[in-house]
């Protein structure tokens, strides 16, 4: 049987050798069941063992294999090779991140931002004491935003993340909103103090691309706009009735 071949143009960057990345061409067979990640592994196994890229679970849950595929952020394990026939396919590291080597990007900046939004249940009386019951409809409030796998495709799609390095960014803000909407959480006020800043929710201009590229349908753009609406109402309340605010704080 004749397997069709496709040209892959893969970004290479060696910090020791190169001053900037360049594209290297490979011919890869297109098997019907193959995804981008299979093609990259084929290159590493058969053509050039020095190609460096992150991957782990192969089933769209670890969030490691995000690359720019023909200038679109995609999960390598969830993107079929055959849809790009006749090719070529350009594979580059995720945009808006510093490149460590080849397709591997540096994400410690994101991890630091993630921590800053306090993405955990905040409870006045200490966590873990007793049960916190939740109805299915209460779960439904935030379930969508809780599906995030931190693959960072949304950061690669968001122009503001690239332009404004202090902007907290889609995934972290969506995750903050996921906990705000959780009926067991009491940290909304605390997070609002951190995120109602120009580099927090207000930095977002609702380009909406984060939502379009999200492989888990988390809808960060929607989450951030809803957060803005809540913050604006809170802000207006404080602006119009500054005296009423003190008593509300617990």
């Amino acid at each position, binding site marked *: 049987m004749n397997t069709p071949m496709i040209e892959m143009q893969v970004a290479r960057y060696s910090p020791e050798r190169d001053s900037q990345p360049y594209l290297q061409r490979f011919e890869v067979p297109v098997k019907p069941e193959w995804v981008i990640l299979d093609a990259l592994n084929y290159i590493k196994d058969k053509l050039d063992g020095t190609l460096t890229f992150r991957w782990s679970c192969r089933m769209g849950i670890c969030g490691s294999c995000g690359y720019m595929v023909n200038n679109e952020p995609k999960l390598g394990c969830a993107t079929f090779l055959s849809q790009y026939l006749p090719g070529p396919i350009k594979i580059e590291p995720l945009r808006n991140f510093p490149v460590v080597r080849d397709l591997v990007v540096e994400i410690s900046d994101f991890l630091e931002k993630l921590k800053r939004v306090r993405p955990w249940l905040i409870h006045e009386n200490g966590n873990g004491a007793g049960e916190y019951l939740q109805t299915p409809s209460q779960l439904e409030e935030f379930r969508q935003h809780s599906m995030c796998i931190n693959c960072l495709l949304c950061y690669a799609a968001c*122009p*503001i993340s690239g*332009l*404004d390095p202090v902007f907290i960014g889609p995934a972290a803000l969506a995750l903050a909103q996921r906990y705000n909407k959780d009926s067991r959480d009491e940290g909304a006020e605390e997070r609002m*103090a951190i995120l*109602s*800043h*120009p580099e927090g929710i*207000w930095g977002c*201009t609702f380009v909406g691309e984060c939502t379009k590229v999200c492989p888990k349908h988390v809808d960060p753009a929607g989450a951030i706009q809803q957060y*803005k*609406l809540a*913050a*604006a109402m*809170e*802000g*207006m309340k*404080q*602006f119009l009735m500054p005296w009423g605010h003190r008593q509300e704080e617990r």
Partner: protein
Amino acid sequence: MVNKETEPIFWTLFSAGGVVAALFLPAQLFLFGIAVPLGWVHVPTHAGMLALLQSPITRIYLLVVCSLPLFHFAHRFRYTLYDGLQIKHLNEMVFAGCYGVAVVGTLLAAYLVVTV
């Protein structure tokens, strides 16, 4: 000027202005910018327009339709300049320019509708 306390207020003005602009401005511009000049509809008489302008409801309507959309413009244009031209370092100037337009426009609108 752009901080935690002010941004919710500017965003609220932006949103309110966006709604007002979306609902009222297309019809307004279509009538006097396109339909009347091209002769698609008859030209409203001066006496009729003046009478319309002198009604208190029209005055309030015009003040709202002039003011809020300018704050919508100020917010959007400010961010477009920051991001599109990458001139975040001119922050203060862009801010003053955009909201300056909105405040001056609002004062002008207030003056005009009061002195009709």
